[in-house]
């Protein structure tokens, strides 16, 4: 998924006709001063750090300035600051407005019902999780017909707006729905949707685009704000990558088997670190790439757990052997391989002729992995 920074989300909103404040993104104090002096954004301004984590208001990532001098010092203080692990590189300047009411509006997928779900609340500006069910209106949206009048009416009742905002709501709901569908979004969220001088304005924007729809939206391919370098490589190679807290590297195929592997390792006290899911591949190069990626993550020990289906065991074995020759000595790691399924015997032969022992029992393999990790840690870490 691609999480869009607030200003990118607002740009999406603008394209679909959702009103947003007139803002500018700046990357330096000089730029900020120029934006204000030129009148592009009038003082007083709100300065918002363009980070993806929530809770910016409480965390000092949203500040105000009433003079150019104040603005410059606020910008200097905010640029480069660390916010929940993200470095602030961009700030959004917007005019400070008198907010009448704060509302909440979002559309996301309801997986069980297999339809998008619009959620609205007359109480916006807070974490939606903090609201009780009776403060929320939930409206399933049929993908073939969008929001019907009676569904909009339910939102209108929850908001109980006065004109002109009440007149604007229907169009805004349609726009939000079109943005959700048109951008292949996993989430479009306006929190708060504010009433400013009687009109509806989206004061914040949270938009998450689905990765799988990237072929329809090449413009989002460039956005990688929330990815670590290793995640970025994994993405390019189409390998699912998860970074956990432990030291055991796990390479498996299929999400279910990956998770089951985690469960089995946990049973023996193993703490997994990097997880790679090969998915269904029978390309030895992809297997090699996965191993080289794993080597970069510097695991203390690696557990290869493959059940051969689409992915054939001999393919994995060949890719693994090829990778081993390419990993520099400094990055070497102990390896426990467990392979079952299609071409299992052939895979085992290939591994064994390269000096790698291939087990078949999952429980025994997991135990071996955890013991190998303990041994390595006991011996004082990397060689």
């Amino acid at each position: 998924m691609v999480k869009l920074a607030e200003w990118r989300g607002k740009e999406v909103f603008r394209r679909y006709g959702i009103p947003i404040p007139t803002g500018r993104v700046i990357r330096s104090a000089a730029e900020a001063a120029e934006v204000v002096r030129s009148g592009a954004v009038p003082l007083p301004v709100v300065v918002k750090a363009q980070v993806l984590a929530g809770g910016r208001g409480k965390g000092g990532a949203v500040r105000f300035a009433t003079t150019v001098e104040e603005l410059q010092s606020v910008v200097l203080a905010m640029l480069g600051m660390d916010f929940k692990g993200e470095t602030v590189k961009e700030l959004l300047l917007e005019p400070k407005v008198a907010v009448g009411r704060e509302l909440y509006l979002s559309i996301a997928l309801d997986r069980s019902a297999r339809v998008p779900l619009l959620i609205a609340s007359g109480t916006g500006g807070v974490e939606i999780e903090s609201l009780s069910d009776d403060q929320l209106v939930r409206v399933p949206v049929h993908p073939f017909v969008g929001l019907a009048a009676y569904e909009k009416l339910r939102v209108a009742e929850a908001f109980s707006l006065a004109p002109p905002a009440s007149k604007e709501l229907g169009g805004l709901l349609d726009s939000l729905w079109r943005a959700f569908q048109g951008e292949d979004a996993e989430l479009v969220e306006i929190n708060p949707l504010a009433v400013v001088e009687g009109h509806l304005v989206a004061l914040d924007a949270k938009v998450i685009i689905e990765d799988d729809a990237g072929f329809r939206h090449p413009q989002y391919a460039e956005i990688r704000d929330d990815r670590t370098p290793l995640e970025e490589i994994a993405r390019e190679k189409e390998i699912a990558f998860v970074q956990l807290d432990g030291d055991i590297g796990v390479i498996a195929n299929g999400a279910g088997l990956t998770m089951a592997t985690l469960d089995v390792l946990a049973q023996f006290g193993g703490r997994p670190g990097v997880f790679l899911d090969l998915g269904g591949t029978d390309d030895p190069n992809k297997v090699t790439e996965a191993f080289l990626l794993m080597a970069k993550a510097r695991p203390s020990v690696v557990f290869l757990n493959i059940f051969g289906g689409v992915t054939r065991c001999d393919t994995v074995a060949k890719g693994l052997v090829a990778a081993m020759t390419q990993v520099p000595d400094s990055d070497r790691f102990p390896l426990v391989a467990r392979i079952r399924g299609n071409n299992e015997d052939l895979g085992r032969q290939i591994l064994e002729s390269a000096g790698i022992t291939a087990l078949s029992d999952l429980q025994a393999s997991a135990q071996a992995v955890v013991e190998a990790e303990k041994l390595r840690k006991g011996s004082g870490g990397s060689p």
Partner: protein
Amino acid sequence: MSVLVDSDTRVVVQGITGHQGTVHTVQMKLFGTQVVAGVTPGKGGAQVEGVPVFNSVAEAVARTGANVSVIFVPAPFARDAFIEATDAGIHLAVIVTEHIPFHDMLTMYQYGRLRGTRIIGPNCPGIGAPGKAKVGIIPNVVFRPGRVGVISRSGTLTYEIVNGIKEVGLGQSTCIGLGGDPVVGTSFVDALPWFEQDSETDLVVLVGEIGGTAEEEAAEYIHQHLTKPVVAYIAGRSAPEGKRMGHAGAIIARGRGTAASKRSALQQAGATVADFPYDVPALVAQRLREAGRR
């Protein structure tokens, strides 16, 4: 009787000339499935492993009587491939393709409902009924004819468990891999009644994952409607919250959909819940013995 497919099933492979399409056409045929046609636009007239290739599904249906489709076409074209199958009168489509945008799947699901085409998948291993037919990619080696039904959201983990059932000397009636995507054509609740009604199934194995609430809904259904014993395993008990474990179907959101909630719901519904995948076969054997079926 088996579930969804049997020896009369006539399969058309959409995307047969692609690498996966060809590989699995061979495997399905080795399984004994009647693979009667393939479709790749522009390659009509060719043959793949003895299977005639047509330019359209409509032509394949008209010429070969195909009634079930398995879709291997790349994700950007999967939506239209499914619509084509549906318009051609195919009543069951097994969609193996992964990475289909869920917005496309919403369309496909509703279009299938409108036209009466059942979807298994996407991003799924498909269906296997040993001795009858296989439509999908589950490895042939894991199967053995028997009376255990399997429904799963996982791929390889299913193979692992199905294989384990074979290794304790039992076999499967029908095995369905539903796929783990955010939007699936068929959920546990859709599939459970088929197994309940299937005279060749004595027990149902349900393989779930963290994320979503499909297992909780299955538990509710089992509690209310299922008379046959159920053995379940839920993968991801040790997965940390909020981490994406390989596909979008496995995100834990807002405390719902945890392994704990799924396991507890299933246990309360009378299912036996395994702690680890390799415990499933023994629990299956035990429940069958208790039910007097073994």
